[in-house]
């Protein structure tokens, strides 16, 4: 167990280093972009004098490394800095965008896991037969449709033609839970591809697990079929699916820009998009820190679960 603990500690340290690297990379790349917050602020009247004035007011005329140093110093005290574009604290931006994104991600994952695993197990049980072929071809087909295309299609049919759901979340603010109808279409779009990849992975693992001698042994000794499938075979099929699930949750938590933009949901994706457009470096960096940490923690969790499901495989940092 102490081996496992030191492994977790090493992984977390490595994760912090990776997050630092991501933040540095984001800073350098945003610096490298033509234009800065002052140019974006000046908007339609790119008067060089005015830009210089704004730049001085924002403190952008100071060397890059000093600005970065200040920002890092603040971060160590839990201060994400101040937005250049609006002057509001970055943490406020993050907090506002976090709610809708987490809500969308939670609802999606709560539906994704049972549907994905259930379809995968069902397809594996009926391997090669009609049900399996139906599930396999449907999942492959849906997987091939990108989010924006599926989103536009769903909006056209269910919102504009049939009028069942609102086409966007405009006007609902950040409190989307009060308007569940507005969540249906975005969640469907978010679910579509992850369900496919998850169910295909579960199907592949489950076919192997169902054919394994230990499964036959459990059946032979009178364990009921449902329990054999879900308690004895399924744990062996889940290791690859767990990794995929972690990537999916990560993708969801980092704000799926396309979906948030399409349905006008004020989540982290929208915050990111606006911040990049405004060259609002502190906000972009704050997001990079949050996304980086989320990725590190989720992957660590997935590796721990995988280790539990496939205890023979060693843990490698």
């Amino acid at each position, binding site marked *: 167990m102490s081996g496992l603990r030191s492994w977790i500690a090493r992984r977390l340290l490595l994760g912090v280093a990776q997050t630092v690297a991501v933040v540095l990379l984001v800073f350098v790349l945003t610096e490298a972009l033509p234009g800065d917050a002052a140019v974006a602020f000046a908007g339609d009247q790119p008067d060089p004098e005015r830009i210089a004035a704004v730049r001085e007011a924002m403190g952008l005329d100071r060397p890059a490394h000093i600005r970065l140093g200040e920002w890092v110093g603040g971060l160590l005290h839990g201060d994400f800095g101040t937005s250049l574009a609006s002057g509001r604290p970055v943490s406020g931006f993050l907090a506002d965008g976090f709610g809708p994104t987490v809500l969308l991600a939670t609802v999606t994952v709560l539906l994704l896991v049972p549907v994905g695993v259930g379809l995968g197990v069902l397809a594996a049980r009926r391997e090669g037969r009609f049900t399996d072929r139906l599930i396999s071809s449907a999942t492959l087909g849906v997987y091939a449709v990108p989010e924006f295309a599926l989103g536009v299609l769903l909006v056209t049919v269910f919102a504009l033609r049939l009028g069942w759901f609102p086409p966007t979340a405009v006007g609902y603010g950040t409190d989307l839970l009060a308007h569940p109808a507005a969540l249906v279409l975005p969640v469907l779009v978010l679910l579509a591809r992850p369900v496919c990849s998850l169910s295909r992975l579960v199907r592949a693992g489950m076919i192997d697990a169902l054919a*394994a*001698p*230990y*499964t*036959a*042994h*459990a059946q*032979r*000794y*009178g*364990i*009921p079929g449902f*329990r054999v499938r879900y*308690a*004895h075979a399924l*744990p*062996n099929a889940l*290791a690859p699916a767990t990794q995929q699930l972690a990537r999916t949750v990560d993708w969801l938590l980092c704000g799926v820009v396309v979906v948030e933009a399409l349905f006008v949901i004020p989540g982290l994706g929208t915050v990111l998009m606006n911040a990049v457009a405004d060259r609002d470096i502190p906000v972009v960096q704050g997001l990079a820190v949050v996304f980086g940490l989320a990725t590190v923690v989720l992957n660590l969790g997935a590796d721990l679960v995988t280790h539990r*499901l*496939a*205890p*023979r495989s060693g843990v490698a940092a």
Partner: protein
Amino acid sequence: MKQDPVLADIDGLTVEVDGQVLVDRVGLRIRPGTVTALVGASGSGKTTTGLALLGEYPAGARVTGEVVVHGRIGFIPQHPASVLNPARRVGALLRDMARQQVRDLPRTRRRAAARQRVAEALADAQLPDAAELLRRYPHQLSGGQQQRVVLAQALLLGARVLVADEPTTGQDALTKRRVVDQLASVARRGIAVLLLSHDLDVVRELADEVVVMRGGRVVEKGPAHKVLENPVHPWTRELLAEPRTVPYAEEGRAGTEVLRVDGLVAHHGAGGSRVPVLRVAGLTLRTGECLAVVGRSGSGKTTLARCLAGLHRDHRGQVLLDGEPLPRSLRDRSREQLAAVQYVFQDARAAFDGHRPVLDQVARTAVRLRGAGREEATAEARRTLADLGLGDDLVRRLPGLLSGGELQRAALARALLARPRVLVCDEITSGLDPVTRRSLLDLLTVLVRQRDGLCVVLITHDLDTAAPATRIAVLDGGEVVEVGDREQILTAPRHPFTVALLRASTRRGSAVRP
């Protein structure tokens, strides 16, 4: 003859898959407390018959005949680990089984009753310290513990018949001993044991009834003493023939030194967990001799073989060929050095690419290691394979269509095409039935005697296989505890471990006493 009621009755059982008959009109009766041994070479239909008792048949099988079983049946497969779920703790299946049995009890008492049953089954299977054991994963158990857990499952089931499939195949003498004792104690509990085995030592010791199978048919059956002592059918006689005693190499022909191991210390693992697993202060191989390396599983036999062949680099000390040190890694060895030390693996099937004909793969050695032309190499491969008894139409097939024994011969041929000085044979006969094993060892004898300057390192856990070697090295816990001529080791062992190994080998017949 006991006149107990019949627990299981197979009558006129025929199993066909795609028109191929696996089992042909087999009849069998099993009585409580007896051990019925089903013996025969690989592919004789033993396992198909055994699984038929469990009501399990190969996919797409056409089954005729009758199988009547009274009571539940337990199963111990050849590899117990294969039926233990790698993702669940050992206790998971046991607990689920016990829960099925206590469903009639009131809800509050089920848990305790189930736990009680599991504990009893484990105790019956001679597994002490059960509570701790149940929390472990199968890979954290030793092979013996795995086998006992599988036995405990059968006992928990309340099995009245136990089918044990090759429980001792590929095990060293001391492990075999333990398995035999265990099965004997199961039979004493009144459980009928159906033993599927080609290990005749075990059959001799345990069986009350013997059924000899060949090509899916029963060729002879009867009480054990009758069948084993006075076999009627010629096939049974061939199966029962004594292991070979003629030495592999001609006596007194050992010549000059070929290979020398000097101060070898091999390690396993990496980083902080790097542990020494093998120490060999010195070992010499001479032309024309056969050195057998014996020891239990995990004693370092294979690591030694792998160090010689350059497959295990993590070692100190030197391996010298003709006085020249060989590079540790195979990657750094020259073509001549690679050709000089050839390795034949235990699992011949895994050692061949399943998608290319055997002949091409055998010929490739001569092209790669000796720079022979394609045509020339193929011709030589065909000749060598024919010498080893593999016909032309056979070797043009894919490896999947050859039997284990045939593939092992092909693997030998492949190594020979390099014209090696040292041939390392790693457990090449384990898992083969006695008839196939004998013919493979006969072949090895011909090779050692005919090929000038060849020396063979024979890694084995089987004393009968090691006995005809020129010299024997005994390994225990990574140390060479004794090296000597065959006569000295077999008749006057000096080290206590060698003595224990000889004693555990149940039948120290003519093979071991030259």
